[in-house]
């Protein structure tokens, strides 16, 4: 069975990433870094599932078109290295690496990204000189506009509570760390066949307990024939003795339209035994200008949410939330009757966490609206005799209805996970879970049946400057 039709081979490895990594790895080795810290880890994941297959094409009406295939297994392994090294004889110079390799261990289908054997997720050098920080290499920006990565440079100026950044370089596909034209080759016909370049700037300031960050991003096609994106965002947070307020808004400069936004007010009461929170938000999906999706003009939804947190008893806490969202007018022709345009979500969870190693909790989530319905109940119990050593057991049952496709179903699952810190540097963890479904509606079989397993080992390297314990980093 081949379900990779339409997908070309893995995006080619980034030559720049390799060169950058070689330099960053080689320089520290040559210069014998004064110190380094980080970790190496290896993990393996296994999944057994029942893929869905189409029975016939074209599908005859009034008969099921899809069914579950035979269960298949797939497994993948990955190794991570995260390392920061400094002290190369140049004051303020440090290098940071986060590398990942993957191997497909076998199975009947491809684990996502398992055909990409190597990722340089982060690979940059920092040089701090007074108020300035210079960064060169593969890096990531965390912002209200997401987490774009790029190969390039960044200059940051910081003076007390004011920080100004400017950065630019070759833009990478989100989450893939490869240029978009390489990473998405074979997945889309209308994506640019050239690189995209990112420039951006941000200003952050803090005044009287309020923090404000304004950011601007502009992505340009390599041949300058157009934009891939042009956006700006504003994030604000502040807190008083009564309440904290957080707000965010982004704006699509290229399309002259507002994107996501929200404002949230949190009020702790009675020494934070109660927390009341209310938020108003707006969401509209963002698509790159290089896809047609944005030109389809998706509509936004507006949502109001209230949350209550309570920790009135010594060992108990609970919280509940409810949100109601309404979609804007889609402006489409209504045939028969309009589809659902109102969504709701509610959640209640209770946690029991006494002094000592035991804890337990239960969560009920309910979400229904356009496209899908989910009612889920999950309970967990954990035993943590010491830091890094734990055993957790969980059970879950849920009902899921997918409005726009085939029927609905119920599922029951359970899992167990555990970990142990062998030394202050070495830890192991692993776990497994099973999910058994009973599907109702048109689909034969149980496509949600899953069996999952995972294991990992992590070894800490080095320590913080002057620290006598190795485990204080990477939090």
């Amino acid at each position, binding site marked *: 069975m081949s379900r990779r039709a*339409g997908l070309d081979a893995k995006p080619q490895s980034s030559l720049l990433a390799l060169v950058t990594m070689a330099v960053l790895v080689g320089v520290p080795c040559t210069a014998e870094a004064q110190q380094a810290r980080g970790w190496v880890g290896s993990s393996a994941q296994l999944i057994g599932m029942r893929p869905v297959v189409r029975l016939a094409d074209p599908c005859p009406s009034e008969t099921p*078109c899809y069914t579950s295939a035979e269960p298949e297994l797939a497994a993948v392994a990955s190794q991570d290295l995260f390392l920061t090294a400094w002290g190369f004889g140049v004051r303020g110079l440090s290098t940071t690496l986060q590398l990942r390799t993957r191997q497909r261990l076998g199975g009947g289908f491809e684990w996502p990204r398992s055909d990409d054997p190597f990722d340089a997720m982060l690979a940059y050098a920092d040089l701090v000189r007074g108020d300035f920080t210079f960064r060169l290499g593969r890096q990531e920006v965390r912002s209200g506009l997401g987490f774009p990565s790029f190969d390039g440079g960044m200059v940051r100026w910081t003076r007390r*509570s004011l920080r100004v950044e400017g950065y630019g370089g070759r833009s990478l596909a989100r989450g893939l760390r490869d240029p978009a034209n390489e990473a998405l080759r074979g997945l889309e016909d209308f994506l640019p066949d050239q690189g995209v370049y990112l420039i951006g700037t941000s200003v952050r300031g803090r005044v009287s307990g309020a923090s404000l960050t304004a950011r601007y991003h502009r992505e340009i096609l390599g041949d300058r024939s157009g934009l891939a994106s042009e956006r700006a965002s504003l994030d604000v947070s502040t807190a008083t003795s009564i309440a904290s307020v957080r707000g965010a808004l982004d704006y699509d400069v290229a399309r002259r339209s507002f994107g996501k936004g929200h404002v949230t007010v949190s009020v702790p009461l009675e020494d934070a035994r109660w927390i009341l929170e209310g938020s108003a938000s707006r969401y509209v*999906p963002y698509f790159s200008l290089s896809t047609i999706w944005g030109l389809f003009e998706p509509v936004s939804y507006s949502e109001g949410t209230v949350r209550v947190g309570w920790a009135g008893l010594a060992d108990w806490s609970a*919280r509940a939330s409810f949100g109601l969202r309404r979609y804007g007018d889609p402006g*489409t022709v209504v045939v028969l009757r309009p589809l659902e345009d109102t969504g709701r979500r509610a959640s209640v969870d209770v946690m029991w966490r006494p002094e000592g190693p035991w804890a337990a909790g239960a969560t009920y989530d309910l979400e229904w609206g356009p496209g899908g319905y989910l009612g889920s109940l999950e309970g967990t119990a954990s035993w943590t005799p010491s830091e890094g050593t734990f055993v957790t057991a969980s059970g879950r049952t849920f009902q899921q209805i997918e409005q726009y496709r*085939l029927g609905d179903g119920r599922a029951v699952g359970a899992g167990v996970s555990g970990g142990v810190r062998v030394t202050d540097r070495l830890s192991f963890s692993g776990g497994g879970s099973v999910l058994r479904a009973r599907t109702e509606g048109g689909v034969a079989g149980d*496509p949600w049946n899953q069996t999952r397993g995972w294991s990992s080992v992590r070894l800490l390297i080095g320590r913080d400057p002057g*620290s006598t314990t190795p485990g204080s980093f990477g939090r």
Partner: protein
Amino acid sequence: MRRRLGWSHLLALAAALGAVGAFAGMVSAFGGEQEEPFPHGAHAGLFPVCTGCHTVATPGSEPGFPPSAQCAQCHDGADLPPVSWTGPSETASNLRFEHASHRLDLETAEEAAATCEACHSVPGEARMRVEGRVEEAACFACHGEAQDDHFAPSSASAESCETCHVPLASTNLPMDRISGLPVPTDHLDGGFLPVGHGREAQQGAARCATCHTVDRCVACHVDTGNPVLARIPAAPPELELPPASAAYPLPESHREERWDERHAPVAEAASCNTCHTTEDCRACHVSPAPDVVGALPRRADVHAPGVGLTPDAPGTHASPFFPEAHGTLAAADDGSCATCHTESYCTDCHDAPTGASYHPSGFVAGHSAAAFGRADECAACHETAAFCRACHLESGFGSVGRLGTGYHDAEPIWLLRHGQAARQNLESCASCHEQRDCVQCHGVLGSFKVSPHQPGFDAERAWATSPRTCLACHVGNPLGGGSP
């Protein structure tokens, strides 16, 4: 022939013993030990002047007690019984006092106190009524302070401690006497340790040195290069000191709300390094840490332990809603996040391909409702085409090629009604469909040529920013005329 004791000898002996008695009393006042006080009164008629016995006339003649042989001149066992008195033993003291120079100073100043009796006799009594102990008041009578003010801070005192006292490091006081040194009243004030003692030390480190050696300072201070500390002598090896434990009272500034988050603007090595080592900062700060962190002393290089901070999450993290709110907080102030978290901490979860811990366990099996609802923006971490669609294709849900019927069978005549769903949840469409699926019908060369644009669509803007995308559906510039 036995030699008779002459009057001159008797007088000399009496004077000597009287002086001895007077001096013994003074020494006793400062801690000296004497087996039995000399009976000055019984010898009053023998010694007309104190200095006949107490040779304190010249500098360096302390303690000025007569040798026992001088007593034996009379107490020879024949006329008078022999005595074994040898005077007080040499006594440890922290006084800066020399009789000769003190007397010269007084004489120069023409002070009436320039006599032995002024200090050593009972006021109003005969000269040889020597007090066994010289009261401190005798010192204070001339040295300007009431006795209550003896321990007043240097700033409030006309006299400084070093006028009368040598630094503790220059004494050989036994440990019990060091432990028993009186505690000045200002030391008992609650603000003395966190604030007052530093100010006082800067104004007059000699006052500190009177009762302390620098060893006491560096039991807490990690700033061993502090110039004030350099003015307080260290204890010689032979001086045994009481054990000193470190104490780090919380300064008033540190009691401010959210101090752990707001201390950065006022953090300076010159002030932080009093109590904190770089390890204290590193308990939370990860690299690259602010310069001030590296400027602080290392714990291994100092005697004091430093405060010994342990990681403590900011108050915002305690909110039960923090998991939902952390994105906004990070976006508004990611510099604060980077204090304690490395980038990998974010990418461990937010990295799309293999992130394992961001979503709860079992999330994948039931993620469709969450994906439709978009409580979180999936595209913040996931490239829709490569991540969502690739997996959906593997699972059999993804679309390849021209659309067939049968999948969206929960809604009748789906093809005619899908527009609303697409406008509301276009990301979900894109998680299974590729653009070509849409272009097949919506493109100008497609089956139905249905415009996907809303009324009022800014075509000029779209063409100006991304003409290549327009050409996915149009065969030419749709604004240029002639081309559809």
